[in-house]
């Protein structure tokens, strides 16, 4: 699974991109975010406020119930501010 972090999620976590496989119990987006938060204080801080975390799986916006599986590209980012 490829994980991408953008904007202040990226600067808080300190990583732009990583490839890893979460434990077998992680089957959806909500589970993935919970697991990521357990990886350390930087993750816990960056992902602490659910309302400020947007998730895209394979470049499409999804909600917490969306499944994640090996090979997915999962991006986590704050609310967008373009335009």
């Amino acid at each position, binding site marked *: 699974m490829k994980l991408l972090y*953008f904007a202040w999620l990226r600067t808080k976590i300190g990583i732009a991109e990583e490839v890893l496989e979460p434990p077998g119990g992680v089957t959806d987006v909500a589970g993935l975010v919970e697991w990521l938060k357990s990886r350390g204080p930087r993750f816990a801080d960056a992902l602490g406020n659910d309302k400020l975390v947007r998730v895209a799986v394979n470049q499409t916006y999804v909600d917490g119930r969306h499944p994640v599986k090996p090979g997915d590209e999962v991006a986590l980012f704050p*609310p*967008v501010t*373009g*335009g």
Partner: protein
Amino acid sequence: MIRVQREDFDIGRELEALTRGKTGVGGVACFLGLVRDMAGDKAVGAMTLEHYPGMTERELARIEEEANRRWPLAASLIVHRYGRLERGERIVLVATASAHREAAFQACEFLVDYLKTKAPFWKQEETPDGPRWVDAESRDDEAATRWTTD
């Protein structure tokens, strides 16, 4: 048509290309977004626009398709820049061409509202206190909800 690019654009040329040969077009509505020098009460020197290559293009294309489903457009265009931009620089151009102006204006506002809430771009401003990520404005979300029909 959508384009995501680092380079600047020439509005006159963009609009000319958009309407060339499409003589049924009576009105083109457009929106030009520029780097402001004030964000809240902080002076801004320049900003850097980060984006999500791949998803950005997909989202913009999806939004553009939706606008074309809702309004009878002869042509539409979104050009969005990324990278470091000085204040006053052009960030984004949205243009919609139609036989009548009402459709062009509505579609243009729809596109701007949606790209501000959906297209994965993030602004980091250079302020006297150092770099600062711009907060999303809740009123942008509110502006986008007016297009929801259900």
